[in-house]
């Protein structure tokens, strides 16, 4: 049996992977978001309200939370992606802070089984107990997290292999050239940010239901900055890049405690060093290209 600590760490890696994938999608189209934590938070709250207060089944709450987060992405993207450059980065941060501050004052409670349940401003939102009431063990939920992550990753990898993924990389590398190949760059970015919101939202739903308690300050800017850094460390050449980033940070730096109190210093230093020597991360496009070639050569040699 896996011990409780390990299940906790692995579940955490799984849930944070969603926000890393979400930030990666935005990076793929050449924009930087400091605000993916907002979509994580929106979905966490929305799904908690649905399952703990309205009595919805978990799967409906999951779809509802993720959809609302996707809608949030759309709302952020439509007015802010008219202009290129740092504009979107700043707007995404402002949007996320706005969401967090609204959650700080958002009170909506109803009586469930004789107890008041619901978001209570900065006091947070307790008793999102769906999975415990349904007798789902932490191990089972961890497996569920990874099934969802595998499905999400599969969808993103399929997109990357298709022409659609080619379009995203066109937009990300040279938006002017993409337009001159007939691509509607703005529509493409808006759709991607909405999809990224949805992906972060899935993570948020899982987070709320595993922890049973959420509060606005969990969804502060550090969560988004980490999500962003995972792609920049792990690499932007494939969706496995951000997952590698998560694994390095949570799996090694946080969990093994080798660097104990210096974790953030090591993490920040890693980002800085990589931005200088490998600005698109360990698994960047060139690395993925070379790995692909080596793989094909090896396969030919075997036949």
């Amino acid at each position, binding site marked *: 049996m896996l011990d409780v600590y390990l299940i906790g760490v692995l579940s955490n890696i799984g849930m944070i992977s969603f926000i890393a994938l979400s930030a990666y999608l935005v990076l793929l189209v050449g924009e930087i978001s400091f605000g993916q934590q907002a979509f994580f938070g929106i979905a966490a709250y929305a799904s908690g309200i649905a399952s703990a207060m309205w009595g919805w089944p978990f799967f409906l709450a999951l779809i509802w939370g993720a959809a609302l987060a996707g809608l949030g992405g759309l709302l952020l993207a439509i007015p802010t992606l008219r202009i290129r450059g740092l504009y979107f980065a700043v707007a995404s941060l402002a949007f996320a802070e706005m969401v967090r501050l609204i959650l700080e004052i958002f009170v909506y409670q109803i009586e469930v089984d004789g107890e008041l349940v619901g978001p209570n401003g900065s006091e947070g939102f307790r008793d999102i107990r769906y999975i415990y009431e349904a007798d789902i063990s932490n191990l089972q939920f961890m497996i569920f997290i990874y099934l969802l992550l595998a499905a999400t990753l599969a969808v993103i990898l399929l997109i990357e292999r298709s*022409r659609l993924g080619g379009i995203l990389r066109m937009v990300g590398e040279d938006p002017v050239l993409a337009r001159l190949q*007939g691509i509607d760059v703005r529509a493409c970015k808006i759709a991607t940010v909405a999809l990224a919101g949805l992906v972060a939202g899935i993570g948020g739903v899982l987070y709320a239901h595993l922890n049973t308690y959420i509060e606005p300050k969990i969804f502060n800017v550090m969560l988004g900055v980490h999500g962003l850094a995972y792609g920049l460390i792990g690499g932007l050449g494939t969706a496995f890049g951000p997952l590698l980033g998560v694994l390095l940070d949570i799996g090694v730096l946080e969990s093994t405690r080798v660097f104990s109190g210096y974790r953030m210093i090591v993490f920040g230093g890693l980002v800085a060093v990589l931005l200088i020597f490998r600005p698109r991360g360990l698994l960047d496009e060139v690395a993925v290209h070379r790995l692909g070639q080596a793989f094909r050569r090896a396969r030919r040699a075997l036949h």
Partner: protein
Amino acid sequence: MLSIKNLSVSFGGLRALDSIELAMATGETLGLVGPNGSGKTTLINVLTGLYRARGEISFEGRSLLGLAPERIVRLGIIRTFQNLRVFTRMNVLQNVLSAQNSLAAVGLRDLILTGGRRERARRDQAMALIEAVGLADQSGRLAGDLPLAQQRRLELARALVRDPKLLLLDEPSGGMMPSETAEMADLIGRLALPGRSVILVEHKMAMIAALCPRMVVLNFGKVIAQGAPAEVLRAPAVIEAYLGRDDDVA
């Protein structure tokens, strides 16, 4: 097919294009020359929707001014770039395939699914063009790793894969050695010109004279001469634009 009337572009106080008048027939190859800064690339940028301008541009009866670049591309106008533009993080084949992504025939299905008969046909077409420009053995290489002359040939293949009605070639031999230039002129003559309207921007007059029955000379944003290359290159205004006047030297 293309008619430009009274077209002007200003950057602040600078008139980059000044009341340009130009007409092109279907299937014509038009040479566009002029000293550096005379407005050749500006004209191409206006035609492809990157710059705003005043005046009139009509392409097959439709006005182009005010249209977004991606809309203009879909009408069948494709360009290459004086300062080379390829997707450096994609391989050669992916670069050529990228130009097919917005074709009207490529539906949502084709964007998501990787297999299929039509998709294979499109890949074959892309590979055939890569072969035609002599990059067959480079198709798997990252475009950013190619030498300049090969990147220019990649740009040509990428432009042709959409089979544009009007092709704008902005210095396709820029930065090339004489032997490479000759190869490029040959490729353009064989692949690009037949059955297509082309505007060729060049500094190398031999290439213009070999490929273009008619040429237009720009200087300071104005058309200063047009006609057959042999005559235009003898016109006093053209010689003055390129070499200066006698009394400039004194």
